[in-house]
């Protein structure tokens, strides 16, 4: 095995230093009848055999390089510049541990500081942490922050039109809390906040793509003494007002769209930012700038009195391992794209999505249901959306998400996503096929 360098001669010499006769002796604390059980697994594979096996298996998936791709719903097909994986996969980043020893981790630490800075600018927040497992768990932890912020308040207001999996994750995380989750429809500015509301949550945009301005919702929440939490699309924030600029106390986001492949749903990037008020209450790792003994600028993990390795059961969260490398990919993506590239990508998504919606809206039997949107919109279809999916997939077009996959009562609704990866020709072909399938 190429991953174990010890030879028989090495083992012999080491056993002699230890003063035992065999490796087996080192395991004598383990109950004898349970020691060295047989494993019902296949024989080990060589490297070429392994790759062949996995290539074969992976080829059974329908992938975005083999179809015109209009499926999003929380996992997005954006362009990943070559520099992003090329740099993030450098062994010095890839195989480093959490930067608890700052003198030998300045590469990771400075990158996190740069990520925090760029993400904070994008989301309009004072502080951003070094990541959560994904957007859904980031939101769940933000809601727990709100519950802890005022233990007298127990109501959580979620939009009806929020990603169903986000709702499920929030419910799981709150299982042990005395909290009541209620849902509101439409704009956050019309949500029924009360003196019991711990937080009003808004999606920016909603699951079906609808963009509601946030300022009135923020005011409504704050007037009632509640926190205003926004779950945002970070790319949208490159061209539209940030949640922070509209009064959010905490912003969470799924950052996969920033330089990370779809990867069958993970690893993704849970982003969380907050106003300065919550700097010492936010979960997760945070990097701060400081100086060494000679006055040289350097970076350290800081405010760790919030965290589990210091506070144990009194910590603000149990989070330890995060999504560091995915965060690094987002960092390099934002740096490479920069101000102009981010606006260009977001603008392309916006314009192409609107072109697609306009064309689809012209087909008899189809109706665009989302009014104000960014890159994703909901379409009512004349035949079941699942039928459309199957028929178009045969023609190498993946038309979007049939909502029936989450809610059987909604068979004729298709959530369509358009990104900078979709050409006008692909959009025209989608439109043509939608037309054909309705006839």
């Amino acid at each position, binding site marked *: 095995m190429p991953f174990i*360098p*010890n030879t028989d001669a090495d083992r012999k010499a080491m056993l002699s*230093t*230890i003063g035992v006769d065999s490796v087996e002796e*080192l395991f004598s604390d*383990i109950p004898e009848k*349970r020691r060295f*059980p047989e*494993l*019902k*697994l296949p024989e080990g*594979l060589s490297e070429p055999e392994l790759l062949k096996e996995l290539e074969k298996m*992976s080829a059974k998936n329908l992938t*975005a390089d083999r179809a015109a791709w209009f499926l999003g719903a*929380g996992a997005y*097909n954006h362009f990943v510049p070559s520099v992003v994986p090329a740099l993030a996969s450098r*062994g*010095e980043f890839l195989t480093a*541990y*959490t930067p608890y*020893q*700052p*003198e*030998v981790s300045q590469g*990771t630490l400075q990158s996190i500081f740069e990520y925090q*800075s760029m993400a*904070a*600018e994008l989301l309009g927040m004072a502080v951003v942490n070094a*990541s959560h497992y*994904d957007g859904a*768990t980031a939101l769940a932890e933000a809601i727990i922050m709100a519950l802890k912020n005022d233990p007298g308040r127990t109501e959580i207001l979620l939009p009806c039109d929020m990603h169903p*999996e986000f709702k499920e*994750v929030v419910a*799981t995380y709150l299982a042990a*809390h005395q909290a009541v989750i209620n849902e509101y429809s439409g704009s956050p500015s019309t949500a029924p906040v009360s003196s019991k509301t711990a937080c009003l949550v808004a999606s920016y945009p909603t699951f079906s793509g609808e963009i509601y301005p946030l300022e009135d919702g923020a005011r409504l929440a704050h007037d009632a003494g509640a926190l205003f939490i926004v779950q945002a699309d970070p790319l949208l*924030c490159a*061209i539209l007002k940030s949640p922070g600029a509209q009064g959010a106390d905490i912003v969470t986001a*799924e950052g996969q769209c920033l330089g990370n492949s*779809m*990867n069958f749903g993970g690893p993704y990037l849970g982003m969380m930012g907050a106003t300065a008020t919550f700097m010492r209450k936010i979960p997760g790792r945070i990097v701060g700038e*400081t100086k*060494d003994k000679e006055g040289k600028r350097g970076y350290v993990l*800081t*405010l760790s009195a919030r965290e589990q390795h210091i506070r144990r059961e009194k*910590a603000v969260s*149990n989070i*330890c*391992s995060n999504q*560091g*490398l*995915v965060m*690094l990919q987002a960092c390099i993506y934002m*740096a490479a794209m920069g101000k*102009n*590239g981010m606006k260009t990508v977001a603008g392309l998504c*916006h*314009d192409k999505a609107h*072109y697609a919606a306009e064309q689809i809206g012209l087909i008899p039997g189809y109706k665009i249901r989302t009014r104000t949107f960014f890159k994703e919109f909901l379409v009512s279809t004349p035949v079941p959306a699942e039928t459309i999916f199957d028929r178009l997939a045969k023609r190498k077009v993946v038309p979007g*998400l049939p909502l029936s*996959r989450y809610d059987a009562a909604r068979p004729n609704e298709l959530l369509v996503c358009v990104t900078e990866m979709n050409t006008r020709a692909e959009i025209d072909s989608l439109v043509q096929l939608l037309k054909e399938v309705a006839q």
Partner: protein
Amino acid sequence: MNTTQEPLIFELSGEGRVGCALPKSDVPHYQLPAGLERDALDLPQVDELTVVRHYSRLSQKNYSIDTNFYPLGSCTMKYNPKVNETAAGLPGWRLSHPLAGEKYSQGSLELIYKLQASLAEIGGFKAVSLQPAAGAHGEFSGVLMIRKYLLDRGEAKRTKMLIPDSAHGTNPASCAMAGFETQTIPSGPDGNIDMKALKAALDDRVAGIMITNPNTLGLFEKKIEKIAAMVHKAGGLVYGDGANMNALVGVFKPGEAGIDVMHFNLHKTFSTPHGGGGPGAGMIAAGKTLAPYLPGPVAVKNRGQYGLQMPDRSIGRVKSFLGNFGVLVRAYAYILMQGKDGLRRIAENSVLNANYLKASLEHAYVVKYPHTCMHEFVAMGDVAPGIHTLDIAKRLIDYGFHPPTIYFPLIVPEALMIEPTETESKETLDAFVEAMLAIAREAVEQPQLLHDAPVTTPVGRLDEVQAARYPVLRYKA
């Protein structure tokens, strides 16, 4: 190591530069929503080569497994095979979408199904969910499963979770998130759980116990089956923290020894890279009592087709989509390469290497619990007056080694927790021993060398107090 100061990416910015060529628009322009247009977006503007040099130089300011020995206790910093990266980067995985539908995702579902089955076999469990994204996420899932099971049995009064004093901080933090109060169980003089204290704690409010085995002293809990039986008899359940599973793969199946639910850190035992903090994967396994409570969905196989299913009494989703899939691909690739016999060799060599280091160092560094260790052991760094573990750790850096885990577990003062893993050669271990012994001599003869260390790094010891007191958490021009 690159010791020259590297500016922040913002400080390299020049108006109008861009680091990626993007397509021109081939559709008309549409108006953005009125009143919502963003004004300023103050991100850096840099060309592509500047991005490449900047992050390449930053990377050179890190120690990593690829460049340095990294004997971090309880972190299992073993070699991360490069083929794992090739495997995870296959376009069939990378460009697959979690909501494409079961029919169009047979490859991914097959991998999930087979990895679930392999891990169940390795751990001796009935069922596995690959949803949790990290060890702590697995712990949280596991204690939520215990909570829901107890509620189903009408035992809401069982709110107390027992946790040995050698446990990781995530154990009590995960319990708190799942609504449990925690009671600490002390370790006995042999470093194992104090059985008397355990017995005294087992009242009718006990929900269960969380056990890390081997524990963070690197010792196998010899009475694990007896402990499980006692807890079960008292009406509680047993959670296994698999952080240290590297010592046990192919050696011992926790699921056959009374553990009801357990997480493994795939980023430790199963060789997926730590990535400077993540992503990990904290799969959770359960025996027959708790299997219906696993987080979902999990992969199933019916008539040759793979699909997804929620376990009957599932605690629900703990994450969107299907776990950290890219990490799962790496772990599965590793298991396939090891095969049925390779896994035991991992445990054997990791335990051999740890005991070799222990035998080579214990005359110079006190090992408080000197019993034969498993994959790691805990030494003490106060080798001379005025010298602390931190000094030893920082001086090791000047010798080109990443320090061991320090000041943990909390029950050993001045702890230096050393885990070499099976992927290090005898030559590397000997070089580390030589450095440790040289530092022990320096501690007596030239203590200032230790207090001043490190001196070979981009920065010296940093002012952490200032960082926390006057936080600067983002760049300001």
